[in-house]
Structures are given as structure tokens and as C-alpha cells.
């Protein structure tokens, strides 16, 4: 059933498969998947972009403890994808918010997930397909509260989100 080949060609097959695999991993896959780029080739060819934007945005989005000043973040929803931006809030804490897209409506689901819950349960406060929204909400329970946006178009959409109130930023999920 299997092929009988000479010992030298078998060794050649093993070595070349390993060399090809190692080269592809180091030059392309590791830079793209994990932002590990020992040779710099991945970065030069643009394979590390999958990791960069997220890191940058998280840096903007992260930080802070409870605060009442207005916070502003710019989020990008890639084409055909959904993103989630969450705030950790205790029960009865309140947040006022406002957001708008740079082009056209997106599907949005403002919701909260109870702290420590593993069943996947969540409660939606607002579901709509709009290009902007303004309002406030009070957390009905301790947990993670925020927005899920879905971009069904074939180009990236930016969302400018401003919010203030009592929260700890969890950021993009």
C-alpha cells in the first residue's frame, strides 16, 4: 500500500519536510499567529498586523479604576466581524454613554453577564441596528457589561465610543 523508497530519499523527505515547516513557521506563521518574529521578515511583509491593532487599542482602552470623567475610545470593527467592549460594574452602578459609527448602521447588543457565571447566560438591555446611540444604564447585577457590535458590511467600520460613570474598563473581548 505504502510506497517503498530508498533510504536516502526517505531521509531527504524527512529533512526537507522539517526544513520547510520550520522556515514557514518562523517566517510567516509565528509572526501572524503569535507576534513572534525573530527574523523580522514577518513584520516586513505585514504578517504581524493581526496582533498590532489589538494591542494598540487595548493600550488606549485599558487602565483606570472607578472614575467619573468622560472616557473616549475609538474602536474598529473589521469587515464581517463582531467585537465586544466591556466594563466591569458592580450592582446598581451607572454608566452614561454615547457612540457613533463613521459609516452606516451596525448591529448592536448592549448586554451584561453576571460575575462568575459560566452558563453563558446574559441579559440584553438594548438590541438595535443603528449608526449612533445615546443613553445610560444601571447594572442589574455585578458583572461584565457592555456592547457587542457586528459589522455585516465588507469594509471596516469605526465606532467612536464615549462613556462616563462607575466602572473598571475591561476593554475589547
Amino acid at each position, binding site marked *: *500500500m*505504502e*510506497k*517503498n*523508497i530508498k*533510504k536516502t*530519499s*526517505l531521509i531527504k*523527505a*524527512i529533512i*526537507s*519536510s*522539517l526544513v*520547510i*515547516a*520550520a522556515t*514557514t*513557521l518562523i517566517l510567516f*506563521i*509565528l509572526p*501572524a*499567529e*503569535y507576534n*513572534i518574529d525573530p527574523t523580522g521578515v514577518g513584520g516586513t511583509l505585514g504578517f504581524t498586523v*493581526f496582533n498590532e491593532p489589538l494591542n494598540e487599542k487595548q493600550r488606549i482602552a485599558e487602565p483606570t479604576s472607578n472614575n467619573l470623567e468622560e472616557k473616549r475610545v475609538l474602536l474598529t470593527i473589521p469587515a464581517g*466581524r*463582531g467585537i465586544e467592549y466591556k466594563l466591569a460594574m458592580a450592582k446598581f452602578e451607572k454608566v452614561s454613554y454615547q457612540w457613533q459609527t463613521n459609516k452606516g448602521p451596525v448591529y448592536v*447588543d448592549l448586554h451584561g453577564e453576571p460575575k462568575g457565571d*459560566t*452558563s*453563558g*447566560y*446574559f441579559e440584553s438591555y438594548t438590541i438595535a441596528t443603528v449608526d449612533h446611540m445615546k443613553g445610560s444604564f444601571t447594572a442589574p447585577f455585578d458583572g461584565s457589561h457592555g456592547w*457587542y457590535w*457586528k459589522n455585516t458590511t465588507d469594509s471596516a467600520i469605526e465606532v467612536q465610543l464615549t462613556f462616563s460613570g462607575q466602572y473598571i474598563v475591561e476593554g475589547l473581548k
Partner: protein
Amino acid sequence: MFSKFTLSIFVIAALIIIPLTSFQTFAHGVDETTRHFLLNNSGVQLTPFMYIGAKHMVTGYDHLLFLVGVLFFLYRGKEVLLYVSLFTLGHSLTLLTGVLANITVNAYLIDAIIGLSVVYKGFDNLGGFKHYLGKQPNTKVAVLIFGLFHGFGLATKIQAFELPSEGLVSNLIAFNVGVELGQFFALMFILLVINVWRRYESFNRFTTTTNTALMSAGFMLVGMQLTGYFIN
């Protein structure tokens, strides 16, 4: 002569391109749409779960590469059926028991083993075991055992969502049925391409190259998943 050449180029290109296209979206786990669906729905949802299972299989390059390796030298319908049934038996067993008994295995490690199964099959096809061990390990047992690991891989994808227990069994079975449908669909294409190619002399000329490429792809999967394991 020209058409043979074109055909072999097409097959090799397909073997290289198909796994690459799904790299980003499915490299680890399930895509965004599926994720949102899984997080938003509870209760029995037969057809959606079936669809997710089928999609996972059709776009799961690691499963497909293994099947290419298994089917490479099988051309009799009976044999194809036997080997595919063994693979199905193996992965269904661990998919169902893994999720229901809540056995958690590290997703990276299991995916690395799945990568290893691709290497194994490529090496086996090259006659490597016969050469170094003097005999070939039982290929049916090997397919069954690797089937068990592939099933654990599928189980980790489902477990990542911590699905509610309500309707879990039905959803899981629907997912499993979807996996088999997706596998059937993918198999048709793999068999079609391999069997057409088999008629040409280039099939024999490229046997070593194809299985070397298979091994190499397997090594890439192993390397990628192990790196993921160590940095997470």
C-alpha cells in the same frame, strides 16, 4: 501531456492553498459569528449545531490533511468505507464522552497531537515505518487511535463555550451529525481529486513530494500549536 501537467499543478496548488485560506479564521476555535450564536442561544438548537459541526469539519484543515493522508493509497470503495468508519467511530466516541463527562484536555496540546497524526500518516505513506521498524504498524488501529484524538480536539472546541446543560446532549449529537456530514462532503472532493489524479502517471511521480508536503504541513501544525501552548 499538457493536461497531466496542468492537473498535477492544480492538485498541488489545491493542497497548499486550501489549508492556508482558513488559517486566520479557524486557526484556533470557532469564528465570530458562531461564537456570538453560541453565547446567545440556549436550549435545543439542532440545525444550527449541525451546521457548526459541518463547517468545522469542512474548514478544519488539520482533519482534512489527515484524511488526505489516510486516503492517499486507498482506492477500493470498501477500504475507503472501512477506514473512514474507523475514523468516525474514534472521533465520535471521544467527542461525546469528552463533552458529557467533562474531560478537559488542553486545546493546544490536542491540536499538536492532531498535527502529529498528519506527520505520522505522511511518514507511513512514504514507507518510513517499514524502513525503520521492519514492519508497518497496523494502519486500521492507527486510524482509530488518531480518530480518538481528533474527537478530543472537537470536544475542546465545544467545551470552550461552556454550554448550558439544557439541551446539551441533543445539541452535541446534532454537532456530531454535522461533523459527519461535513466530513462526507469533504471526502467526496478529496476522493474525486485523488482518484482522478491516480490515473495519471504524475500521481506516482509526485507520491514522495505529496507525502513530504503532508509531513511538512503536519510539522507546521505541531510547531504552531506547541508555540501556542508554551506562550499561553
